[in-house]
């Protein structure tokens, strides 16, 4: 499988505070990664750099050998940790906007998923429950035929049944050559669908291995192992 994302010595400082400290990382296509770490560990900083919302203080990051810019944004589908949609518009308007904006957006697929989830395209975003809003956001992201999917807390704030549904949506809709990065602290809910996990602690990668490697080596679930590594 090809390397899609490459970081070399990636560092980000906010004033004196070190948010990312010399991160070296390679993300390959065909895998689902869990980016796991406590609050304030640097997960969202990394994701924002990857999506061009922040610039690194030093170091390099490339997507498909390209520096972050319009070319990489065209192949990275990003679900931010909170919605940026205009709440006054209808679901179908957002779909129209996305199909204008992203060349790889599949409108039919988006409608198909809305229908499967029993969401009316004529409903306004603001009338939807929190869970439904999350689903709409995820539909927009998963309807793109991207090379990299970056999902920042895709299941936070929805009930367990909806979580299962959302994970299923991710499994059934991602493109098998793509890389999926899921950032979350609800590890127990996602660990079965991950193949690799990256632990990030105070801006540094402290563990990068497969889910089954961790289970075999430590006789613990990734969730259990995480609790050990990050014990307060």
């Amino acid at each position, binding site marked *: 499988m090809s390397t899609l994302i490459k970081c070399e010595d990636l560092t980000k400082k906010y004033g004196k505070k070190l948010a990312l400290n010399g991160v070296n990382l390679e993300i390959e296509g065909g895998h689902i990664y869990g980016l796991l770490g406590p609050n304030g560990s640097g997960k969202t900083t990394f994701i924002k750099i990857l999506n061009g919302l922040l610039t690194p203080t030093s170091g390099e990051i490339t997507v498909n050998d390209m520096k972050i810019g319009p070319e990489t944004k065209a192949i990275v589908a990003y679900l931010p940790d909170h919605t940026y949609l205009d709440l006054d518009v209808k679901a179908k308007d957002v779909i129209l906007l996305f199909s204008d904006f992203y060349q790889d957006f599949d409108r039919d697929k988006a409608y198909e998923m809305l229908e499967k989830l029993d969401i009316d395209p004529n409903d306004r975003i603001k009338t939807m429950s929190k869970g439904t809003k999350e689903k709409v956001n995820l539909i927009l992201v998963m309807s793109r035929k991207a090379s990299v999917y970056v999902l920042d807390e895709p299941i936070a704030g929805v009930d367990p049944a909806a979580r299962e549904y959302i994970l299923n949506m991710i499994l059934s809709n991602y493109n098998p050559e793509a890389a999926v990065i899921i950032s979350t602290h609800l590890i127990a809910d996602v660990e*079965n669908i991950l193949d690799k996990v990256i632990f990030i602690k105070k801006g540094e990668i402290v563990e990068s291995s497969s889910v089954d490697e961790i289970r075999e080596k430590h006789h613990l679930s990734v969730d259990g192992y995480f609790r050990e590594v990050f014990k307060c």
Partner: protein
Amino acid sequence: MPWKLDADRPIFIQLVELLQMDILSGKYKPGDKLSAVRDLAQEAAVNPNTMQKALAELERLGLVYTERTSGRFVTKDQNLIMNLKKEQASVVIKDFLDKMKKIGYDDASILEFIKETLERSKE
């Protein structure tokens, strides 16, 4: 419903065990076609690469085979299935006997106890 998996053992091994059990129990019959990797992974709610690895292991054990264009099938080798079944059964029995001995039964009384229990369950 996602498949029931333990949290502290490798997922790959558990998928092999569960699929093997489905073949031994006859849920999948000899010659049955298996669903595509992606569909099985979705059904189990696991990573498709892990499911792929589990199926490859079953293939290595001879329990499934791949036909290049049409997919994966359960072996038609009844002997192989029978032998694996016996292997599984002896593991279960050995485990049972160990436990019975631990609570103080000897061979003769274990046998008697089993007979009694079987009789009673017929009623």
